[in-house]
């Protein structure tokens, strides 16, 4: 029975299938980078600097003779470690705020929304930029910054979905029974905002990859020689005319992952909307 419904899901939302497949490819190659990559990410080969793609180096080499394919694969592992963690942090934080503020309403809602508005008055990149400058670039800091910056946006979505539920009669029935707050939030309301939450979480995952790549590009993520995709594009952009493979392949990798997640999110949205 489960297989039949999975197949049905694929038929109704083909974008879901394509996205999931692409995503799976990324995860598998990223986790298996150690075994798949022909070289390490930092292995120098000054004999073959800026070599065009060939049998020895499928994606060519960069200005230090490092194999671009290997760097792209290890970069995938690195992106995999940031995006889900940051998204999870944002979901937990934002979800909690959204639920609580939707349930209590009145002044709690007003105050929290004003605070969130103030934080959201910053364009995300500027906020991330400021925070990372102050905190210093590192893996943990990037995760924390992205997570905290996403929390208000997620809180908004959760709040909107929860508000629609809070007024409903089954919540009143639960209050009438004398149920405690955690039960009402987690067992009564949360299951019914699952749909929008999952979709929002997937979209956020895509944006997490997006933002960490952007931060890498701007030089605010981790520092070289760590193989961050955005950093690779930024480092090599002057060589777009002479050695385009150094820029194009990391760029394609980024595009691949974010497109995969977008398609997945779109498919999920179609499924949950019905």
């Amino acid at each position, binding site marked *: 029975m489960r297989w039949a419904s999975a197949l049905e899901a694929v038929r109704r939302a083909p974008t879901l299938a394509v996205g999931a497949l692409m995503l799976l490819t990324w995860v598998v190659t990223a986790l298996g980078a150690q075994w798949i990559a022909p070289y390490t990410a930092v292995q120098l080969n000054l004999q073959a600097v800026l070599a065009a793609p060939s049998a020895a180096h499928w994606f060519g080499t960069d200005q230090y003779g490092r194999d671009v394919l290997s760097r792209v694969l290890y970069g995938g592992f690195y992106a995999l470690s940031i995006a889900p963690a940051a998204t999870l942090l944002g979901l937990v934080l934002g979800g909690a705020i959204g639920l609580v503020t939707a349930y209590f309403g009145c002044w709690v809602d007003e105050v929290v929304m004003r605070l969130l508005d103030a934080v959201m008055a910053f364009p995300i990149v500027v906020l991330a930029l400021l925070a990372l400058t102050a905190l210093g670039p590192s893996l943990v800091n990037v995760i924390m910054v992205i997570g905290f910056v996403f929390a208000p946006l997620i809180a908004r979505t959760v709040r909107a979905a929860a508000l629609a539920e809070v007024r409903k*009669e089954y919540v*009143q029935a639960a209050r*009438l*029974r004398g*149920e405690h707050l955690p039960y009402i939030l987690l067992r009564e309301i949360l*299951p019914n905002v699952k749909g929008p939450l999952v979709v929002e979480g997937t979209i956020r995952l895509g944006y997490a990859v997006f933002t960490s790549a952007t931060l890498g590009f701007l030089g605010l993520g981790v520092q070289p020689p760590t193989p961050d995709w955005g950093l690779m594009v930024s480092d090599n952009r002057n060589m777009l005319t002479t050695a385009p493979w150094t820029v194009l392949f990391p760029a394609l990798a980024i595009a691949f992952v974010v497109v995969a997640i977008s398609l997945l999110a779109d498919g999920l949205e179609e499924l949950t909307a019905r």
Partner: protein
Amino acid sequence: MSAPLLDIRGLTVTYRRRRDAVTAVRDVSLAIRPGEAYGLVGESGCGKSTVAMALLGYLPRNGRLDQGEIRFEGRDIARMGPAELRALRGARIAIVYQNPGSALNPSLPVGRQVAEVYRYHARMGWREAHEAAAAMLERVRIADPRRVMRQYPYQLSGGMQQRAVIAMALAGDPALLVLDEPTTALDTTVQAEILELFDGLRAELDAALLFISHNLGVVRHVCDRMGVMYAGELVEQGGADALFAAPRHPYTAALIGCVPDFGVVKHERPLASIPGTLPDAAALPSGCAFAARCPIAQARCRTDHPPLEVLDGARLSRCWFARDTPAPDAGIYADEPPQAASAQESPVFFSVRDVHVRFGAVPILRGIDLDLRAGRTFGLVGESGSGKSTLARVLTGLSAPSEGSLELDGGRLSEKAAGRTAAARRALQMVFQSPDTTLNPSHRVAHILRRAVRVLSGLRGDALRARARELLKEVALGDEVEPRAPAQLSGGQRQRVAIARAFAGDPRLVILDEPTSALDVSVQAAILNLLIVLQRRSGVAYIFISHDLAVVRYVSDRIGVMYLGEIVEEGPTEAVFGGPHHPYTEALIAAVPHLRAAPAQSAVRLRGQSPGPARRPAGCPFHTRCHRVRSGCAEREPPWRDAGGGHHIRCWISVEELTCVQAGHDKQ
């Protein structure tokens, strides 16, 4: 006899679903003559709205007209192209739908929307069209039409909005006016005004009417002839009066028996109920569609599909045993015998003392005092804005009052549900209005009931599960319902689960806030019967809140009438309805559409609209709309008058005078 204006022959409409096709309308034929009013009744899923949509050529994308003709003024609508349809709609056939608020465009002024019809069908210039629109708005009895024309829909009341929609429909001077549940979303008094409007208009216009509704009383009032639909078929057709007097199809008879016609009370007879559910429209049975639920079904009914037969004169019926149809109040339709009225007074166990609720400076409830007796039903009646739902919330502890207190067994109750003792929470429970949102869609029935039992009665383990199953049995649901999610249950089944949930802790008082308003007539009857049976078995008291006067009269022992946050009349049911009554009650009673003989027109109609709690009038809050208002009513608040036998009226007019002037009006 003139040629029919509308002649539908053999109409069959199916909707394509993902895996199958649903037959919404099956071989329906009906004819309407010019100037005639034809009523089409049936419950949800019978296909009546689909007939209306097919009539206008407005079926949804997955709908298909498989067979049949729809001849209107000689031409077949089913075969028309878009340009022809456009010329027809709004000009020859117009339609008025249920929800006037959403039928009007929120971004355009009302006048513009009415004028459009004149502009595009009568080809007038904008100025001329606006003039014509103003004239039409006046014809639908809108006061100060020029001001209304400049306003946006949200600024008008429900009744005014519907009048504007009717004006839009009449603007094209149509030959046929289709009305699909036009008064269902309106208050009873507003509904009565709109029906009166129709009466007046019909005398002036020569439009034919196709009136679609599930409300039998309303259809009775408006229509000359009627058709009853069930599972996509026409099962009976005939003159409205004759049909109600002597129905010739078991479904029609049962349907009539389900409605608590005004004046019938629970002690006299139980309501009819129709067991079972609608047949699956994707897999219709081979015999009569109603056979599975019919009290007089024979073997033949299950195998042979009955055709529409002509009975004496104008009556048609789709039944093999049409002439044997029992009368609606025959016992065969009901499950349980009527409940005899109990003689003695039971003790007062729950009191509401001087409760006030204010939102800022606006008074929502003022000075509410109630005493409830064990095992009795107290009915609370009022229209929108009366504050009855707020009162329900205060009683259950979902909202705290600004002033006043609640007492249970003499002990004061905490204002918030969370602060009450477990015993108090067990004792006071509530059943809500909407079956769609009353159960958590993510929980299964088993979990919903077991959780309620666990929290309210403290049982665990096997005892817990057994009790949950017992509750299901008490509300006449089988064990197969337990693993299901609410989405897999019908509206009636969901409401039964909600009732079971409220009874999980053996409550002493259950507050029912419009528990059947969103349900079909037959389902409502079954739920009302269930509630009465449960009361008899467990001795629970009810507060039954509703805007439907007939239903409240049927189930209640005592009645309270609310207006703008106050109780204006209170007493035993028959005393309140028998008279004398408060002028507001008088108007409410006059607004109820009757099923049996149409009453002599009492013509008691309220003036204007409810001012709303924010603009509460001084003195008696009702005086601005009262048809018996006199000097002094606007100055001071009226006193309570004792009309005897526990019946109290809050009015400046004395009881004697009220008895005198109201005796002239017909009372049921």
